[in-house]
Protein backbone atom coordinates (compact mmCIF):
# COMPACT_ATOMS: atom_id res chain seq x y z
CA UNK A 1 0.00 0.00 0.00
CA UNK A 2 2.94 2.25 -0.49
CA UNK A 3 1.30 3.60 -3.59
CA UNK A 4 -1.26 5.49 -1.61
CA UNK A 5 0.73 8.69 -1.42
CA UNK A 6 0.47 9.39 -5.12
CA UNK A 7 -3.24 8.78 -5.13
CA UNK A 8 -4.05 10.93 -2.22
CA UNK A 9 -3.69 14.24 -3.93
CA UNK A 10 -6.13 13.13 -6.57
CA UNK A 11 -8.88 12.90 -3.98
CA UNK A 12 -10.90 15.95 -3.43
CA UNK A 13 -10.90 17.71 -0.10
CA UNK A 14 -14.46 16.67 0.40
CA UNK A 15 -13.54 13.03 -0.08
CA UNK A 16 -10.77 13.32 2.43
CA UNK A 17 -13.08 14.88 4.93
CA UNK A 18 -15.58 12.15 4.28
CA UNK A 19 -12.89 9.54 4.81
CA UNK A 20 -11.94 11.12 8.09
CA UNK A 21 -15.53 11.19 9.20
CA UNK A 22 -15.70 7.50 8.41
CA UNK A 23 -12.70 6.81 10.54
CA UNK A 24 -14.24 8.48 13.52
CA UNK A 25 -17.10 6.04 13.67
CA UNK A 26 -15.52 2.95 12.23
CA UNK A 27 -17.16 1.13 15.08
CA UNK A 28 -20.50 1.95 13.57
CA UNK A 29 -19.88 -0.08 10.43
CA UNK A 30 -21.05 -3.58 9.95
CA UNK A 31 -17.89 -4.71 8.24
CA UNK A 32 -15.92 -3.59 5.21
CA UNK A 33 -18.74 -4.11 2.72
CA UNK A 34 -20.91 -1.78 4.74
CA UNK A 35 -18.13 0.78 4.80
CA UNK A 36 -17.62 0.45 1.06
CA UNK A 37 -21.33 0.93 0.52
CA UNK A 38 -21.25 4.14 2.52
CA UNK A 39 -18.27 5.34 0.49
CA UNK A 40 -19.95 4.40 -2.76
CA UNK A 41 -22.89 6.56 -1.78
CA UNK A 42 -20.55 9.55 -1.62
CA UNK A 43 -20.07 9.11 -5.36
CA UNK A 44 -23.69 10.08 -5.72
CA UNK A 45 -24.27 7.78 -8.66
CA UNK A 46 -26.35 4.73 -9.28
CA UNK A 47 -24.61 1.86 -7.57
CA UNK A 48 -24.44 0.02 -10.90
CA UNK A 49 -22.33 2.85 -12.28
CA UNK A 50 -20.12 3.26 -9.30
CA UNK A 51 -16.44 3.61 -10.06
CA UNK A 52 -14.92 0.65 -8.35
CA UNK A 53 -11.45 2.02 -8.98
CA UNK A 54 -12.42 5.21 -7.25
CA UNK A 55 -13.91 3.21 -4.45
CA UNK A 56 -10.80 1.11 -4.02
CA UNK A 57 -8.68 4.21 -3.77
CA UNK A 58 -11.03 5.76 -1.26
CA UNK A 59 -11.00 2.68 0.88
CA UNK A 60 -7.23 2.40 0.82
CA UNK A 61 -6.96 6.01 1.83
CA UNK A 62 -9.25 5.29 4.69
CA UNK A 63 -7.10 2.40 5.86
CA UNK A 64 -3.97 4.55 5.61
CA UNK A 65 -5.62 7.28 7.61
CA UNK A 66 -6.72 4.88 10.25
CA UNK A 67 -3.19 3.60 10.51
CA UNK A 68 -1.83 7.12 10.82
CA UNK A 69 -4.28 7.84 13.56
CA UNK A 70 -3.30 4.57 15.23
CA UNK A 71 -6.83 3.24 15.00
CA UNK A 72 -6.83 -0.51 15.09
CA UNK A 73 -8.88 -1.98 12.31
CA UNK A 74 -10.36 -5.42 12.50
CA UNK A 75 -8.79 -8.07 10.31
CA UNK A 76 -11.78 -8.04 7.95
CA UNK A 77 -11.00 -4.47 6.99
CA UNK A 78 -7.37 -5.27 6.30
CA UNK A 79 -8.22 -8.29 4.20
CA UNK A 80 -10.53 -6.11 2.16
CA UNK A 81 -7.78 -3.53 1.81
CA UNK A 82 -5.38 -6.13 0.46
CA UNK A 83 -7.97 -7.39 -1.97
CA UNK A 84 -8.79 -3.88 -3.15
CA UNK A 85 -5.11 -3.09 -3.64
CA UNK A 86 -4.89 -6.17 -5.83
CA UNK A 87 -8.03 -5.16 -7.67
CA UNK A 88 -6.71 -1.67 -8.19
CA UNK A 89 -3.51 -2.94 -9.75
CA UNK A 90 -5.51 -5.24 -12.02
CA UNK A 91 -7.66 -2.36 -13.12
CA UNK A 92 -4.76 0.00 -13.74
CA UNK A 93 -2.29 -2.32 -15.41
CA UNK A 94 -2.83 -3.70 -18.89
CA UNK A 95 -4.01 -7.29 -18.68
CA UNK A 96 -1.21 -9.82 -18.66
CA UNK A 97 -2.07 -12.64 -21.06
CA UNK A 98 0.05 -15.02 -19.01
CA UNK A 99 -2.04 -14.40 -15.96
CA UNK A 100 -4.79 -16.78 -15.03
CA UNK A 101 -8.00 -15.94 -13.28
CA UNK A 102 -10.65 -13.34 -13.68
CA UNK A 103 -9.98 -9.94 -15.11
CA UNK A 104 -10.03 -6.78 -13.09
CA UNK A 105 -13.29 -5.81 -14.74
CA UNK A 106 -14.92 -9.04 -13.69
CA UNK A 107 -13.79 -8.55 -10.12
CA UNK A 108 -14.95 -4.96 -10.11
CA UNK A 109 -18.33 -5.93 -11.53
CA UNK A 110 -18.76 -8.47 -8.79
CA UNK A 111 -17.93 -5.95 -6.12
CA UNK A 112 -20.47 -3.57 -7.61
CA UNK A 113 -23.02 -6.38 -7.58
CA UNK A 114 -22.29 -7.12 -3.95
CA UNK A 115 -22.74 -3.51 -3.00
CA UNK A 116 -25.95 -3.20 -4.90
CA UNK A 117 -27.28 -6.40 -3.38
CA UNK A 118 -26.41 -5.28 0.13
CA UNK A 119 -28.07 -1.94 -0.51
CA UNK A 120 -31.14 -3.73 -1.84
CA UNK A 121 -31.34 -5.96 1.20
CA UNK A 122 -31.07 -2.93 3.46
CA UNK A 123 -33.87 -1.32 1.58
CA UNK A 124 -36.24 -4.25 1.74
CA UNK A 125 -35.36 -4.84 5.38
CA UNK A 126 -36.51 -1.32 6.10
CA UNK A 127 -39.68 -1.85 4.09
CA UNK A 128 -40.32 -5.07 5.93
CA UNK A 129 -39.94 -3.46 9.32
CA UNK A 130 -42.19 -0.61 8.24
CA UNK A 131 -45.05 -3.01 7.61
CA UNK A 132 -47.91 -3.33 10.02
CA UNK A 133 -46.83 -5.72 12.68
CA UNK A 134 -48.74 -8.14 14.82
CA UNK A 135 -49.01 -6.91 18.37
CA UNK A 136 -48.23 -3.36 17.32
CA UNK A 137 -50.56 -2.42 14.50
CA UNK A 138 -52.90 -5.34 14.33
CA UNK A 139 -53.86 -7.80 16.98
CA UNK A 140 -54.88 -11.31 17.57
CA UNK A 141 -57.76 -12.62 19.60
CA UNK A 142 -57.59 -11.63 23.23
CA UNK A 143 -59.92 -14.24 24.62
CA UNK A 144 -59.23 -17.56 23.11
CA UNK A 145 -61.20 -20.66 23.67
CA UNK A 146 -59.28 -23.76 24.22
CA UNK A 147 -60.27 -26.66 22.20
CA UNK A 148 -61.19 -29.37 24.58
CA UNK A 149 -60.01 -32.70 23.52
CA UNK A 150 -62.50 -35.44 23.57
CA UNK A 151 -60.90 -38.78 23.60
CA UNK A 152 -62.62 -41.50 21.75
CA UNK A 153 -61.29 -44.98 22.07
CA UNK A 154 -61.64 -47.53 19.38
CA UNK A 155 -60.46 -51.04 19.77
CA UNK A 156 -58.72 -53.01 17.20
CA UNK A 157 -57.35 -56.46 16.68
CA UNK A 158 -55.67 -58.20 13.84
CA UNK A 159 -56.44 -61.50 12.26
CA UNK A 160 -53.24 -62.77 13.81
CA UNK A 161 -54.46 -61.75 17.25
CA UNK A 162 -57.62 -63.65 16.58
CA UNK A 163 -55.80 -66.75 15.42
CA UNK A 164 -53.39 -66.61 18.30
CA UNK A 165 -56.26 -66.18 20.70
CA UNK A 166 -58.01 -69.16 19.32
CA UNK A 167 -54.84 -71.19 19.25
CA UNK A 168 -54.27 -70.34 22.87
CA UNK A 169 -57.64 -71.68 23.86
CA UNK A 170 -57.30 -74.74 21.76
CA UNK A 171 -53.89 -75.47 23.18
CA UNK A 172 -55.49 -75.66 26.58
CA UNK A 173 -58.13 -78.04 25.34
CA UNK A 174 -56.05 -79.82 22.86
CA UNK A 175 -55.86 -83.14 24.59
CA UNK A 176 -59.38 -83.14 25.80
CA UNK A 177 -62.29 -83.97 23.62
CA UNK A 178 -64.55 -81.03 23.19
CA UNK A 179 -67.57 -81.85 25.34
CA UNK A 180 -70.11 -79.74 27.00
CA UNK A 181 -69.59 -80.92 30.50
CA UNK A 182 -70.39 -78.92 33.52
CA UNK A 183 -70.38 -81.81 35.85
CA UNK A 184 -67.53 -80.62 37.96
CA UNK A 185 -68.26 -76.93 37.91
CA UNK A 186 -69.15 -75.44 41.22
CA UNK A 187 -71.28 -72.37 41.10
CA UNK A 188 -71.45 -69.49 43.47
CA UNK A 189 -75.06 -70.32 44.24
CA UNK A 190 -74.08 -73.74 45.42
CA UNK A 191 -71.31 -72.36 47.57
CA UNK A 192 -73.55 -69.67 48.95
CA UNK A 193 -76.13 -72.19 49.96
CA UNK A 194 -73.57 -74.36 51.66
CA UNK A 195 -71.89 -71.52 53.43
CA UNK A 196 -75.10 -69.98 54.71
CA UNK A 197 -75.66 -73.21 56.59
CA UNK A 198 -72.07 -73.48 57.81
CA UNK A 199 -71.32 -69.93 58.72
CA UNK A 200 -73.39 -69.94 61.87
CA UNK A 201 -70.77 -72.16 63.43
CA UNK A 202 -67.81 -69.99 62.54
CA UNK A 203 -67.41 -67.94 65.69
CA UNK A 204 -63.65 -68.00 65.25
CA UNK A 205 -61.52 -67.11 62.22
CA UNK A 206 -61.47 -70.07 59.87
CA UNK A 207 -59.58 -70.58 56.65
CA UNK A 208 -61.80 -70.12 53.64
CA UNK A 209 -60.44 -73.39 52.32
CA UNK A 210 -62.46 -75.28 54.88
CA UNK A 211 -65.60 -74.16 53.08
CA UNK A 212 -64.60 -75.70 49.80
CA UNK A 213 -67.23 -78.15 48.65
CA UNK A 214 -66.66 -81.83 48.65
CA UNK A 215 -65.07 -83.26 45.57
CA UNK A 216 -63.36 -80.03 44.65
CA UNK A 217 -60.13 -81.86 43.95
CA UNK A 218 -61.46 -84.14 41.23
CA UNK A 219 -60.07 -82.11 38.38
CA UNK A 220 -58.78 -78.76 37.34
CA UNK A 221 -62.16 -77.35 36.46
CA UNK A 222 -63.57 -78.41 39.76
CA UNK A 223 -60.61 -76.99 41.64
CA UNK A 224 -60.84 -73.69 40.01
CA UNK A 225 -64.53 -73.22 39.98
CA UNK A 226 -64.77 -74.35 43.60
CA UNK A 227 -62.22 -71.77 44.64
CA UNK A 228 -63.88 -69.06 42.69
CA UNK A 229 -67.36 -69.93 43.82
CA UNK A 230 -66.35 -70.14 47.45
CA UNK A 231 -64.51 -66.88 47.35
CA UNK A 232 -67.32 -65.10 45.56
CA UNK A 233 -69.82 -66.54 48.02
CA UNK A 234 -67.70 -65.36 50.93
CA UNK A 235 -67.68 -61.86 49.52
CA UNK A 236 -71.40 -62.01 48.97
CA UNK A 237 -71.89 -63.00 52.61
CA UNK A 238 -69.60 -60.22 53.72
CA UNK A 239 -71.63 -57.82 51.63
CA UNK A 240 -74.74 -59.04 53.36
CA UNK A 241 -73.06 -58.39 56.68
CA UNK A 242 -73.07 -62.01 57.75
CA UNK A 243 -69.32 -62.63 57.83
CA UNK A 244 -66.07 -60.80 58.18
CA UNK A 245 -63.19 -61.57 55.85
CA UNK A 246 -59.53 -60.99 56.48
CA UNK A 247 -56.19 -61.75 54.96
CA UNK A 248 -53.08 -60.94 56.96
CA UNK A 249 -50.88 -60.39 53.93
CA UNK A 250 -50.70 -61.08 50.24
CA UNK A 251 -51.10 -64.80 49.54
CA UNK A 252 -51.79 -65.53 53.20
CA UNK A 253 -54.84 -67.68 53.83
CA UNK A 254 -58.12 -65.83 53.60
CA UNK A 255 -60.07 -66.25 56.82
CA UNK A 256 -63.73 -65.93 57.62
CA UNK A 257 -65.65 -65.35 60.81
CA UNK A 258 -69.29 -64.97 61.61
CA UNK A 259 -70.11 -61.35 62.14
CA UNK A 260 -71.44 -60.82 65.61
CA UNK A 261 -74.40 -58.66 66.20
CA UNK A 262 -73.58 -55.21 67.56
CA UNK A 263 -74.76 -55.85 71.10
CA UNK A 264 -72.56 -58.88 71.49
Amino acid at each position, binding site marked *: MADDDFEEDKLSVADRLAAEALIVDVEGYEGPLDLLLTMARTQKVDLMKVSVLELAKQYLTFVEKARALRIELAADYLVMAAWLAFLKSRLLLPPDPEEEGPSGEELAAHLAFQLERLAAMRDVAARLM*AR*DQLGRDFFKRGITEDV*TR*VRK*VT*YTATLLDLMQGYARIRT*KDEFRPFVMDREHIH*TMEQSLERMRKLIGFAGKWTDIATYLPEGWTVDRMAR*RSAHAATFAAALQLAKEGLVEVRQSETYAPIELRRKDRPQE
Partner: protein
Amino acid sequence: MTETPNNDAANDDGPIRDTLFEAPPEAEQERMVEAILFASAEPVTVADLNARMPHGADGAAAVQALRRRYEGRGVNVVRIGDAWAIRTAPDLGFLMQKETVETRKLSRAAIETLAIIAYHQPVTRAEIEEIRGVSVSRGTVDQLLELEWIRFGRRKMTPGRPVTFVVTEQFLDHFGLEATRDLPGLKELRAAGLLDNRPPPGTAPETEEGADDDSQSDMFRPPLDPEVEDESGPEDGA
Protein backbone atom coordinates in the same frame (compact mmCIF):
# COMPACT_ATOMS: atom_id res chain seq x y z
CA MET B 1 -48.13 1.69 10.05
CA THR B 2 -47.44 2.46 6.45
CA GLU B 3 -48.86 -0.32 4.41
CA THR B 4 -52.44 -0.98 5.20
CA PRO B 5 -53.36 -2.67 1.99
CA ASN B 6 -57.01 -3.65 1.95
CA ASN B 7 -58.33 -1.13 4.32
CA ASP B 8 -61.22 0.62 2.80
CA ALA B 9 -62.07 2.54 5.89
CA ALA B 10 -63.11 6.09 5.48
CA ASN B 11 -59.83 7.66 6.45
CA ASP B 12 -56.43 6.22 5.78
CA ASP B 13 -53.94 8.71 6.97
CA GLY B 14 -54.25 9.27 10.60
CA PRO B 15 -57.61 8.44 12.03
CA ILE B 16 -56.37 9.87 15.28
CA ARG B 17 -56.04 13.37 14.00
CA ASP B 18 -59.34 13.31 12.20
CA THR B 19 -61.31 11.95 15.04
CA LEU B 20 -59.85 13.78 17.95
CA PHE B 21 -62.21 16.65 17.84
CA GLU B 22 -65.24 15.21 16.21
CA ALA B 23 -66.70 11.82 16.81
CA PRO B 24 -66.14 9.30 14.01
CA PRO B 25 -69.19 8.13 12.07
CA GLU B 26 -71.26 5.44 13.69
CA ALA B 27 -70.08 2.68 11.39
CA GLU B 28 -66.53 3.60 12.26
CA GLN B 29 -67.36 3.47 15.95
CA GLU B 30 -68.81 0.03 15.46
CA ARG B 31 -65.60 -1.12 13.78
CA MET B 32 -63.64 0.22 16.71
CA VAL B 33 -65.76 -1.57 19.25
CA GLU B 34 -65.46 -4.72 17.18
CA ALA B 35 -61.67 -4.51 17.18
CA ILE B 36 -61.46 -3.68 20.87
CA LEU B 37 -63.77 -6.47 21.96
CA PHE B 38 -61.93 -8.89 19.71
CA ALA B 39 -58.47 -8.08 20.97
CA SER B 40 -59.17 -7.57 24.66
CA ALA B 41 -58.28 -10.35 26.99
CA GLU B 42 -61.25 -9.52 29.21
CA PRO B 43 -64.76 -8.24 28.78
CA VAL B 44 -64.76 -4.47 28.29
CA THR B 45 -67.11 -2.04 29.99
CA VAL B 46 -68.78 0.77 28.12
CA ALA B 47 -66.76 3.21 30.20
CA ASP B 48 -63.59 1.49 29.01
CA LEU B 49 -64.78 1.60 25.44
CA ASN B 50 -65.47 5.30 25.68
CA ALA B 51 -62.10 5.90 27.26
CA ARG B 52 -60.34 4.09 24.47
CA MET B 53 -62.35 5.41 21.56
CA PRO B 54 -61.85 8.91 20.19
CA HIS B 55 -63.49 11.74 22.00
CA GLY B 56 -67.20 12.02 21.45
CA ALA B 57 -67.73 8.39 20.49
CA ASP B 58 -70.72 6.61 21.95
CA GLY B 59 -69.50 3.19 23.01
CA ALA B 60 -72.90 2.12 24.33
CA ALA B 61 -74.66 2.75 21.04
CA ALA B 62 -71.83 1.18 19.05
CA VAL B 63 -71.82 -1.96 21.13
CA GLN B 64 -75.56 -2.30 20.69
CA ALA B 65 -75.22 -1.93 16.95
CA LEU B 66 -72.45 -4.51 16.97
CA ARG B 67 -74.54 -6.84 19.08
CA ARG B 68 -77.32 -6.69 16.54
CA ARG B 69 -74.88 -7.25 13.73
CA TYR B 70 -73.63 -10.43 15.31
CA GLU B 71 -77.05 -11.84 16.07
CA GLY B 72 -77.27 -15.28 14.55
CA ARG B 73 -73.61 -15.33 13.61
CA GLY B 74 -71.00 -17.83 14.67
CA VAL B 75 -69.93 -15.54 17.48
CA ASN B 76 -72.13 -13.17 19.46
CA VAL B 77 -71.60 -9.97 21.37
CA VAL B 78 -72.65 -10.79 24.91
CA ARG B 79 -72.99 -8.85 28.07
CA ILE B 80 -71.09 -10.14 31.06
CA GLY B 81 -71.95 -8.17 34.17
CA ASP B 82 -71.59 -4.60 32.99
CA ALA B 83 -69.01 -5.47 30.38
CA TRP B 84 -69.11 -6.78 26.83
CA ALA B 85 -67.31 -9.56 25.05
CA ILE B 86 -67.43 -11.58 21.87
CA ARG B 87 -68.21 -15.22 22.51
CA THR B 88 -68.83 -18.35 20.48
CA ALA B 89 -72.50 -18.84 19.69
CA PRO B 90 -73.86 -21.34 22.19
CA ASP B 91 -75.01 -23.78 19.53
CA LEU B 92 -71.50 -24.04 18.11
CA GLY B 93 -69.80 -25.03 21.33
CA PHE B 94 -69.37 -28.49 19.93
CA LEU B 95 -66.79 -27.13 17.50
CA MET B 96 -64.56 -26.27 20.38
CA GLN B 97 -63.98 -29.91 20.96
CA LYS B 98 -61.47 -31.88 19.11
CA GLU B 99 -61.99 -35.54 18.99
CA THR B 100 -58.90 -37.59 19.28
CA VAL B 101 -59.34 -41.17 18.39
CA GLU B 102 -57.25 -43.52 20.33
CA THR B 103 -56.82 -47.01 19.14
CA ARG B 104 -56.31 -49.69 21.69
CA LYS B 105 -55.69 -53.32 21.39
CA LEU B 106 -58.61 -55.49 22.23
CA SER B 107 -58.15 -57.31 25.52
CA ARG B 108 -57.12 -60.89 25.52
CA ALA B 109 -60.46 -61.99 26.92
CA ALA B 110 -62.27 -60.15 24.15
CA ILE B 111 -60.04 -61.58 21.45
CA GLU B 112 -60.54 -65.08 22.74
CA THR B 113 -64.27 -64.64 22.99
CA LEU B 114 -64.35 -63.22 19.51
CA ALA B 115 -62.24 -66.05 18.20
CA ILE B 116 -64.57 -68.62 19.72
CA ILE B 117 -67.59 -66.94 18.21
CA ALA B 118 -65.89 -66.79 14.84
CA TYR B 119 -64.85 -70.43 14.89
CA HIS B 120 -67.95 -71.91 16.49
CA GLN B 121 -70.79 -69.66 15.50
CA PRO B 122 -73.61 -69.71 16.28
CA VAL B 123 -72.52 -70.17 19.84
CA THR B 124 -74.16 -69.53 23.21
CA ARG B 125 -72.55 -67.80 26.10
CA ALA B 126 -72.45 -71.06 28.02
CA GLU B 127 -70.59 -72.69 25.17
CA ILE B 128 -68.09 -69.88 25.05
CA GLU B 129 -67.49 -70.28 28.75
CA GLU B 130 -67.10 -73.94 28.27
CA ILE B 131 -64.47 -73.50 25.63
CA ARG B 132 -62.56 -70.75 27.37
CA GLY B 133 -62.81 -72.41 30.74
CA VAL B 134 -63.74 -69.14 32.38
CA SER B 135 -66.91 -67.21 32.56
CA VAL B 136 -67.37 -64.49 30.02
CA SER B 137 -67.94 -61.08 31.47
CA ARG B 138 -70.82 -59.11 30.19
CA GLY B 139 -68.46 -56.21 29.47
CA THR B 140 -66.54 -58.32 27.00
CA VAL B 141 -69.65 -59.30 25.08
CA ASP B 142 -70.98 -55.75 25.18
CA GLN B 143 -67.72 -54.44 23.83
CA LEU B 144 -67.82 -56.83 20.91
CA LEU B 145 -71.44 -55.98 20.26
CA GLU B 146 -70.60 -52.31 20.35
CA LEU B 147 -67.77 -52.77 17.89
CA GLU B 148 -70.36 -54.47 15.75
CA TRP B 149 -68.12 -57.42 15.30
CA ILE B 150 -70.68 -59.80 16.78
CA ARG B 151 -74.44 -59.79 16.91
CA PHE B 152 -77.15 -61.98 18.31
CA GLY B 153 -77.97 -65.01 16.19
CA ARG B 154 -81.08 -67.06 16.44
CA ARG B 155 -81.91 -68.85 19.66
CA LYS B 156 -80.75 -72.34 20.13
CA MET B 157 -83.45 -75.00 20.14
CA THR B 158 -82.28 -76.39 23.43
CA PRO B 159 -83.95 -76.02 26.81
CA GLY B 160 -84.03 -72.41 27.85
CA ARG B 161 -83.65 -71.38 24.20
CA PRO B 162 -80.44 -69.48 24.87
CA VAL B 163 -79.41 -66.75 22.47
CA THR B 164 -76.43 -67.34 20.28
CA PHE B 165 -73.75 -65.04 18.96
CA VAL B 166 -72.50 -64.83 15.41
CA VAL B 167 -69.93 -62.58 13.78
CA THR B 168 -71.00 -59.73 11.52
CA GLU B 169 -70.17 -58.42 8.08
CA GLN B 170 -68.11 -55.73 9.77
CA PHE B 171 -66.10 -58.43 11.43
CA LEU B 172 -65.32 -60.06 8.11
CA ASP B 173 -64.52 -56.64 6.71
CA HIS B 174 -62.19 -55.72 9.50
CA PHE B 175 -60.28 -58.95 9.33
CA GLY B 176 -60.28 -59.12 5.58
CA LEU B 177 -62.21 -62.34 5.40
CA GLU B 178 -64.78 -63.33 2.86
CA ALA B 179 -66.43 -65.81 5.15
CA THR B 180 -65.68 -67.38 8.48
CA ARG B 181 -64.82 -70.60 6.75
CA ASP B 182 -61.71 -68.81 5.49
CA LEU B 183 -60.37 -68.80 9.03
CA PRO B 184 -57.43 -71.13 9.26
CA GLY B 185 -58.16 -74.42 10.92
CA LEU B 186 -56.31 -75.97 13.80
CA LYS B 187 -53.97 -77.84 11.51
CA GLU B 188 -53.00 -74.68 9.76
CA LEU B 189 -52.59 -72.87 13.02
CA ARG B 190 -50.25 -75.54 14.15
CA ALA B 191 -48.35 -75.41 10.90
CA ALA B 192 -48.01 -71.69 11.37
CA GLY B 193 -46.49 -72.31 14.77
CA LEU B 194 -49.38 -70.70 16.52
CA LEU B 195 -50.30 -73.68 18.59
CA ASP B 196 -47.99 -73.95 21.53
CA ASN B 197 -46.57 -77.25 22.45
CA ARG B 198 -47.68 -77.29 25.96
CA PRO B 199 -48.08 -80.28 28.21
CA PRO B 200 -51.64 -81.42 28.41
CA PRO B 201 -53.50 -80.09 31.38
CA GLY B 202 -53.20 -82.07 34.52
CA THR B 203 -49.79 -83.55 33.81
CA ALA B 204 -47.88 -80.74 35.40
CA PRO B 205 -50.26 -78.92 37.63
CA GLU B 206 -47.74 -76.60 39.23
CA THR B 207 -46.34 -75.02 36.11
CA GLU B 208 -49.74 -74.96 34.65
CA GLU B 209 -50.86 -72.43 37.20
CA GLY B 210 -48.39 -69.95 35.94
CA ALA B 211 -49.02 -70.69 32.33
CA ASP B 212 -52.71 -70.12 32.62
CA ASP B 213 -52.45 -67.13 34.80
CA ASP B 214 -54.88 -65.17 32.74
CA SER B 215 -57.71 -67.53 33.34
CA GLN B 216 -56.76 -67.68 36.94
CA SER B 217 -56.77 -63.97 37.36
CA ASP B 218 -60.08 -63.94 35.60
CA MET B 219 -61.45 -66.37 38.11
CA PHE B 220 -60.22 -64.61 41.12
CA ARG B 221 -60.95 -61.15 40.03
CA PRO B 222 -62.71 -59.61 43.00
CA PRO B 223 -66.33 -58.98 42.10
CA LEU B 224 -65.86 -55.26 42.28
CA ASP B 225 -66.73 -54.26 38.79
CA PRO B 226 -70.40 -54.45 38.00
CA GLU B 227 -69.94 -56.63 34.98
CA VAL B 228 -68.82 -59.59 36.97
CA GLU B 229 -71.30 -59.09 39.68
CA ASP B 230 -74.39 -59.96 37.80
CA GLU B 231 -72.66 -62.74 36.09
CA SER B 232 -73.90 -65.28 38.47
CA GLY B 233 -72.15 -68.32 37.25
CA PRO B 234 -73.16 -70.73 34.61
CA GLU B 235 -76.75 -71.09 35.72
CA ASP B 236 -77.88 -69.90 32.33
CA GLY B 237 -76.38 -73.00 30.80
CA ALA B 238 -78.29 -74.99 28.32
